[in-house]
């Protein structure tokens, strides 16, 4: 305790802090830490499907007639949300993504999702577009078949498969008995653009 107090004093340029200020800072940090934890775990059951704008606002080109439409979010609303990513993991099996991309994203007749190669872009909005629009040579389009919030949950999960989400929000275990590392322990891959087949 003695050591840490003197080091704090040194770090603050030996300015005399009162005990009250120090406890206030500590309490603030604790609160921030705790509420950050709440956000991570928040179960957003009541998220209604976003309007159609999110779906149409994903644009490939930069030019637009008239006024600019609202931009699609570049990040999944569930990017840092452990519940949302977990739901994405469940949906990944439920909607048979496993059938082509492999149980843990290792790939099969579809491209692997746990590596660093991205044919149609690694950004969240690009992944969203890939899932909702479908892609040539086998990727079905799920737009209109899935509520938007479920697509965003899948986007967050797909990002977690190659370590693009925080380890603290990514799934920590697998329900199946295959030996793949859970998403939270995979090393982050640096996305590179790969050519399509």
């Amino acid at each position, binding site marked *: 305790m003695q050591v840490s107090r003197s080091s704090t004093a040194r770090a603050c340029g030996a300015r005399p802090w009162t005990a009250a200020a120090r406890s206030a800072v500590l309490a603030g940090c604790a609160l921030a830490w705790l509420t950050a934890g709440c956000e991570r775990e928040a*179960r957003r*059951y*009541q*998220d*209604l*499907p976003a309007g159609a704008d999110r779906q149409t606002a994903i644009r490939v080109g930069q030019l637009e007639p008239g006024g600019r439409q609202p931009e699609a979010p570049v990040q999944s609303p569930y990017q840092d949300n452990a519940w949302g990513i977990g739901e994405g993991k469940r949906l990944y099996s*439920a*909607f048979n993504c496993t059938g082509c991309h492999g149980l843990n994203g290792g790939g099969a007749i579809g491209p692997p999702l746990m590596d660093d190669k991205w044919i149609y872009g690694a950004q969240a909005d690009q992944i969203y577009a890939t899932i909702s629009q479908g892609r040539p040579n086998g990727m079905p389009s*799920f737009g*209109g*078949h*899935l*509520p938007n*919030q*479920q697509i965003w949950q899948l986007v967050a999960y797909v990002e977690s498969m190659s370590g693009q989400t925080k380890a603290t929000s990514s799934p920590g275990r697998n*329900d199946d008995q295959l030996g793949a590392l859970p998403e939270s322990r995979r090393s982050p891959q640096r996305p590179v653009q790969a050519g399509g087949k």
Partner: protein
Amino acid sequence: MNPSLQSVLRPSGAHAVLVDHLFALITTICVVVWILTALAAWTAIRRGRVAGSSATDQQAGRHVAVATGITVVTLIGILIATMVTGRAMDALRVDDPVRVKVTGNQWWWDIQYPGAYPSQQVTTANEIHIPVGRQVQIEMLSNDVIHSLWIPELQGKIDLVPGHLNTLWLEADYPGVFRGQCAEYCGAQHAKMALTVIAEAPGDFERWLMANRAPAPTPTTPDQQHGQEIVVKGPCSLCHAITGTSAGGRTAPDLTHVASRSTLAAGSLPNTRGYLAGWIADPQHVKPGSRMPPTGLQGGDLQDVLAYLETLK
């Protein structure tokens, strides 16, 4: 009979009667032992230590030995009674039972009646029909976590374990509607994971089975046809299956004959048009955490979907 009431004290089948007898025996023994113990304690407290008592350690030791002996004999008696009950239950098994497969899911029950051919298989949810007076063999698995099937009027409870087949035998002695529920905490909506068991005359059961083997009826009115289009092309078909249409999802209850069932959302709501509308419009209000996402269906579309679902008898 009101299926919302369930009671272990109202056995309605051969197995449940055996369990009930064992329960009565053990309860009686426990009550007698409790009364004797309480009386002994009360007497001891009242009398207190008598001055100049001649009781020795040897005498006290003898009393403890006798009490221990009586306890051990009683416990062994209960053990024997339990084994006899188990044997009696085993003896009830027959070679040609009605076979039912129950798969637990968060938070609903998938019910299947295997047939000789795939087309004879019946898939339903949250409602088990059984013929009165016949042995029923229920094979149980789980798709996610451990659940437990408990229909107090018919049998004791047995767990549904992922990857491990458990079997439960039961029989209903007379027609009735019995409520069952999940008896192993399984997540947010464990409390709203109930099921209904309908015991009916063998003829009625066969008719029900035949009716449920049929594919879903074709919608006739424009409203119903539009409703079917929304269900099959929209988000519903990714999780729900309706035999005879291209909706083939297997992660949510089969809707082929949903209108013939008595409850919605695993015993959460009565199956009426109003409740169904509320459930489809905002399932997360009725059952927060349920796997059914908010659909955003509104107005005319919702009414048409309801009109279609009501035809699925």
